[in-house]
Structure formats: structure tokens, C-alpha cells
């Protein structure tokens, strides 16, 4: 016959590492087994597991699942507006999900990566080996992001646009926008436009110039984002659970809100005198936050079970 709580223990063992099991979960279940059966006592153990989840570090497998879940959620949130537009045009087709995937991944990967790091290493000092693993992973994500935003996303975006437009009665041959140019093409156009503008101020339309600058700088910013987000997560891991998760959630929400807000008409105002500056603001804000966290982490010795 199975002992009371053995199923709960099996579930918890899938989530938490051996240290957390020995320190937190097993004592709760051992006490449960020593008492008369009661639903409330079961619920208290479930609460212990729920309280543990943000408090301690999870197994790498569990952290990966959380990371992929966050990534999928963000991709879905980013795909929704263009898909809703296609739906309103009556041109929606399931294949469009695939065309929008690279664009969604370009933003979602860094958020998913940060969530995974916080789950895997939250509340404990990171070993040198783990640190090397995180750095290697973020560099790989950065390299993949460069290829994605440089070549895959522009092609996929253009395919999506053509799919939407071609099926409307007023469709016409569809030129590529700056965001649909490959990395080399957008770089060349940006250099050319900058040269013209510097030799003949006002020759290039201001909105176009800012759009082009942000299309170019935005690709570098997205390429570096996995590294910056990974550093942010590493700077947060030793914070108290509430600060850790509230901070991560706030940064994720603000970042996504900024991405949604970043549209062509607002770029000149956001950029100001710094062409393409709007693309870098999230990274710069995060770097400032990382420096602040690291400076205050020097005086911090907080560590929790796990």
C-alpha cells in the first residue's frame, strides 16, 4: 500500500533538486504521514510545493520546460496582432503561424532564456561550470538571433505580407519594407542614406531615415539581447524570491510593451538626435539595471534552500 503523500512526493521530485527535497518537501511529507489523514493537511503540503517553486532552484529539465513555456507564450502574444489583422482581412490561413514564428522568436528567446536561468539557478550561488554553460547558451542564442533577424525573419515577414495582400481584391505587386530587407541590404541602404543626409541635410525623408536606422540598429540590438537578458537574470538570481520574480516579470512586460509601442510614426520622436537610438533603449536600460544589481549584490549574502 502506498503511504500518504507518496504521489505528491513523486511530483515534487520531478520539479526540485535533491537538496530541496531533503530540506523542504520530505519533512513536510514525513509530518503528513505522522498525522491522521486530512484534506487540509494535504493542501498544506501542496502549498509547501507551490511556495517552493519560486523560492528554490529547479531541476534543469523543469527549468527548460518553464523556459519553453514562457517562450511559447511570448511568441503567441507577438503573433496575435498580425494574425488578427489577417483574420480581419479574411485572408487568414494556418500556414501564417509559421511565417510569423521567426519574428516572434527574435523577441521571445531572450525572455525565455532569462526565465529558464531564474528557474534553474534562483536563490543560489552559481558554480563556475554553470556560469560557463549560461554564457555559452546565451552566445549561441545570440548567434542564432543574428541569422534569424538578418535573413530568416525578413524573408518570412515578406512571405506573410504577400500572403495577406495577394488574397485581397486590391492586391498589387508588393515591395519589401526596410524590415523585409536582409541584413546586408539594410546595412547598405542605411549607409547610403546616412551619407546622403550628412552631405545634404534634409534630402532623405526624416521618418524613412529613422525607420531605416532602427531597422538596422534593431537587428544588432536583438542579436545582443540574449546576452544582456542572460546577464540580467544572473544578476537577479540571488535576490529574494519576490524581488526576483516581480523584477523579472516587470522587465518582461515593459520590454514587450515597448516592442508593441515601437512603430514607425513614433521613431523620430523616440530617437531624438540619436538615429536608431530607440532600438537600443531596452538594452541600455537593462545594462543600467544590471550594474545597479551587481553593485548592490556585493553586499548580499542571501541564499535559500536548493
Amino acid at each position, binding site marked *: 500500500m502506498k*503511504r500518504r503523500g507518496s504521489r505528491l512526493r513523486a511530483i515534487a521530485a520531478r520539479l526540485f533538486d535533491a537538496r*530541496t527535497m531533503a*530540506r*523542504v*518537501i*520530505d*519533512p*513536510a*511529507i*514525513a*509530518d503528513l*504521514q*505522522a*498525522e491522521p489523514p486530512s484534506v487540509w*493537511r494535504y*493542501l*498544506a*503540503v*501542496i*502549498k*509547501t510545493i*507551490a*511556495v*517552493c517553486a519560486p*523560492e*528554490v532552484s529547479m531541476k534543469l529539465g523543469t527549468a527548460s520546460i518553464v523556459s519553453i513555456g514562457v517562450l511559447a507564450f511570448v511568441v503567441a502574444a507577438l503573433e496575435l496582432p498580425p494574425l488578427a489583422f489577417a483574420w480581419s482581412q479574411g485572408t487568414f490561413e494556418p500556414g501564417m503561424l509559421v511565417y510569423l514564428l521567426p519574428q516572434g522568436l527574435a523577441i521571445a528567446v531572450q525572455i525565455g532564456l532569462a526565465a529558464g536561468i531564474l528557474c534553474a539557478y534562483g536563490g543560489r550561488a552559481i558554480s563556475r561550470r554553470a556560469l560557463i554553460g549560461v554564457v555559452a547558451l546565451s552566445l549561441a542564442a545570440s548567434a542564432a538571433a543574428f541569422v534569424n533577424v538578418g535573413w530568416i525573419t525578413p524573408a518570412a515577414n515578406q512571405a506573410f505580407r504577400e500572403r495577406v495582400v495577394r488574397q485581397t481584391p486590391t492586391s498589387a505587386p508588393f515591395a519589401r519594407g526596410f524590415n523585409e530587407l536582409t541584413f546586408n541590404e539594410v546595412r547598405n541602404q542605411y549607409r547610403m542614406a546616412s551619407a546622403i543626409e550628412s552631405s545634404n541635410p534634409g534630402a532623405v525623408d526624416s521618418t524613412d531615415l529613422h525607420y531605416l536606422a532602427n531597422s538596422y540598429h534593431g537587428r544588432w540590438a536583438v542579436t545582443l539581447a540574449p546576452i544582456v537578458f542572460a546577464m540580467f537574470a544572473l544578476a537577479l538570481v540571488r535576490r529574494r524570491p519576490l524581488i526576483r520574480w516581480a523584477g523579472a516579470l516587470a522587465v518582461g512586460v515593459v520590454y514587450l510593451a515597448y516592442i508593441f509601442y515601437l512603430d514607425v510614426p513614433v521613431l523620430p520622436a523616440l530617437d531624438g538626435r540619436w538615429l536608431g537610438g530607440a532600438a537600443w533603449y531596452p538594452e541600455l536600460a537593462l545594462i543600467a539595471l544590471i550594474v545597479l544589481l551587481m553593485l548592490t549584490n*556585493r*553586499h*548580499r*549574502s*542571501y*541564499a*535559500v*534552500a*536548493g
Partner: protein
Amino acid sequence: MAKRPRVLTLSAKEHLVLELLAEHGELYGLQLVANSRRKLKRGTVYVTLGRMEDKGYITSRLEDAPPEMGGMPRRLYEATPLGRRVLAAWSTAATHLMPEFAK
């Protein structure tokens, strides 16, 4: 580089746990909950105890369940000398800073 000294912090719950352990000696998690007059919750006490063990304020040992009952070994908690010193220092500081709240 020399390692920075640890900053010792004590939350209200940790203070209560130390007080109970200093008063009763060794206690199970459930006994701490029972003796705390509802100030400690059974759903969160084990996380607090795990954190306090990491801080070095308490220590624990496993005690086998009675053979007739069976079950997993239960964990008994006890204040460490550091925990007792922190509790004493905290209580002294509180008495000096806020005499009106001192017991």
C-alpha cells in the same frame, strides 16, 4: 580577494522560530506550527526552516518513524549556537531601540 563578511538578517518568522527552538529545544516542523499560535503556517514553515538552515541559524537531524507507524523519517530542528547568539543580539537590540515593545 578576501571574502566579504556575511550580513546576518533575521525576519519576524525566523525570530519566532528561534524563540520557540530556544524555549523547547528540538521540535518538528508541525510542533513549531502548533506552538506558534497560528503565527507560523504549515504550508510555509518548511521553506522558512530550509532557509534558516542555509543561514546557519538552525540545524536538523532525521529521526526514524516508530516501527509500528512506519512512514518517512521525520526532521527535528534545533537552534545552533549562531542562531542563539543572533536571537540574543536581536532581542537586546530591540530592547534598546524600542523599550516600549520589549517583553
